[in-house]
């Protein structure tokens, strides 16, 4: 397996020259002016930039909620700009999770139902397996005892933890988080971030966080800076670990359809800051 093959196998998202122009009456506003970057499987990347720089638009495009005006982006080897609405909806349901600044839980439903919603809405009913997974996720985010509470009865921090669990319900390959801690106090923000970090390490899910919080961004593995619709600094491509055994394990597990259960391999692949072995590997490379 050469370096090129490894890069292909570990690549999750490949964005090439993505542009977005909004037309309002006769006025055109170019929000994204040619964004190019990649995400590897299992990494946690922070996206920084001033308000109005195009972060939210880019997240909407990456989340397949909005189509780019031009450019291409591939996820899991699939060109997403060519898919129709129905295909995008299905892809989004199965491969992408969203976490918003204002949690956006459905107020008429319990914590468990909120987490279950992406799954039950897809299969058309609440399955026993779905409920078990939703309960497991709520347990994981520390809300086992709040499972049957209406969303309106939860605190801000609890709501955001439910939103994190909901984003993970369908075992997505990518979680897009738009200012996930922006509406929380420092303590809750730290807790939410640590939770996402732990889950990312445990499951190998890729996280792309849009944030203004430099302290949190520093704790991510990589940062991308966007200004005026272009990537201005930071590492726009991931540093691919070259530990063959760990990669093989991660790739095999991902191919088997259980990326969230990959622990050791995925960590070895993406946890470049925390593992001496991988740092040595990187230095050798």
């Amino acid at each position, binding site marked *: 397996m050469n370096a090129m093959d490894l890069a292909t196998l570990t690549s999750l998202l490949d964005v090439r020259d993505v542009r977005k122009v909004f037309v309002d009456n006769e006025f055109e506003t170019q929000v994204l002016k040619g964004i190019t970057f990649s995400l590897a499987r299992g990494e946690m990347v922070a996206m920084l930039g001033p308000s109005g720089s195009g972060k939210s638009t880019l997240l909407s495009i990456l989340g397949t909620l909005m189509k780019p005006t031009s450019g291409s982006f591939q996820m899991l080897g699939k060109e997403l700009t060519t898919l129709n609405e129905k295909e995008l*909806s299905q*892809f989004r*349901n199965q491969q992408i999770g969203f976490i918003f600044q204002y949690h956006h839980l459905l107020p008429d439903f319990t914590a468990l139902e909120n987490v279950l919603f992406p799954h039950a809405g*897809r*299969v*058309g*009913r609440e399955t026993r397996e779905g409920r078990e997974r939703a309960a497991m996720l709520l347990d994981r985010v520390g809300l086992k005892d709040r499972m049957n509470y209406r969303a309106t009865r939860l605190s801000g921090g609890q709501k955001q933890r439910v939103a994190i669990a909901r984003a993970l319900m369908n075992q997505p390959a990518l979680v897009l988080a738009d200012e996930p801690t922006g509406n929380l106090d420092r303590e809750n923000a730290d807790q939410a971030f640590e939770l996402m970090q732990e889950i990312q390490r445990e499951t190998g899910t890729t996280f792309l966080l849009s944030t203004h919080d430099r302290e949190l961004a520093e704790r991510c593995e990589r940062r991308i800076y966007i200004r005026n619709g272009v990537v201005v600094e930071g590492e726009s491509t991931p540093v691919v670990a070259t530990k063959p055994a760990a990669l093989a394990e991660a790739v095999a597990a991902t191919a088997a359809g259980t990326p969230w259960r990959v622990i050791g391999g995925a960590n070895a692949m993406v946890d470049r800051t925390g593992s001496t072995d991988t740092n040595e590997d990187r230095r050798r490379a």
Partner: protein
Amino acid sequence: MRFDLKVALRYLLSNRLQSALLIGGVAIAVTVFTFNAALINGLAEFQIQRVVGNSSHVTIEPEKALPAVAAAADGAERLVASQRTLERRPQIKQWRTVESIIDTIPGVTGVSLNILGTGLVSRGQQTLPVTLKGVEPSRLSAIAPIDDAIVEGEARLGINDVLIGKKLATDLGIRVGQPIFIASDQGRERTLTVRALYSTGVDSLDSRLAFVNLDTARVMFDLPEGLTEIEIKLADIYAARAVARQLADTTGLEATAWMDKNQRLREALEGQGSSGSIIKMFTLITILVGVASALLLTTFRRRPEIGIMRSFGISENFVLSVFMLQGALIGIIGSVIGCLMGFGFCLALASLTGGKLPVDPALGQYDSALLLAAAASIIAALWPARAASRIDPVEAISQ
């Protein structure tokens, strides 16, 4: 339970006041619908029973001789002429056979063998035109309950007797037991004794109809064998057309159902029915507008939620289904309650008015009300549901 149904139910339950008002609105509209149907249909039934209940449901008459088309020479136009014989009125000669055929038809409750003709009655200087109806004495009340309508004298019809209406008696200044001079349109004259006076409440009968014995009529109208008509009464008045068709086919005679003889009644009922339909249509429009506007408001209020659902890949069809189901639930629950309210209201009104108001709770068209109200609610939900399913998630989330 289907998840879209669960979501629809949860949405309805989350805003109980709005849902209750909506369901209440549909229920009231359906109550109006069913009450209107019970009143219009009850009134129609009342009128039919009043008019038709005491008259013939199927009348058999001699076949009208149609002129044959004469063969014409080439190039000549065809000429058709029709003239009814003046020598003897058309008659049913084979009436015994016809009667035996009638006996085989189920649901026949009465048969009257009649000779009908016109004549003049005179008393002193007073002379008035009348319709003379010759009937068998034993079948005097086979069609109309003349026995029950007798107000003076006794319903006995010997060959020298005549029964006349109270109004005619007043016009002629005659009383029971007095003789009356009658001349038929065939020029036969007889003096008969007024045996009884009747009052049906129908002016045309009470002032213009006189009953005589069938044998007396045979002499007066010069019909030694035949009849001019056979009247039939049925248990089910709405079977009249089918019975008439059957009799016409089997006897070759002209058989007419009551609804085809009572043009005015039919027109009146049709007019009544049309006004009822307009009221029903407005109740359905009320449901349509009410449900559509309320669900549109709900759609607007829930835009961010719908945007969130769409963001995690919930399909447009699922969102569409959630709102359509809300419409269907409102429609079905509202119309069931409305039907129950309508039935109860009609029942209460019928008993309170002691039958004076012709409301028939059984004729409330509850099945149509259920079906149409539910359909109207579903149709009303279509627009908001489509609007909801097409919400742009990015716009909705940022709202």
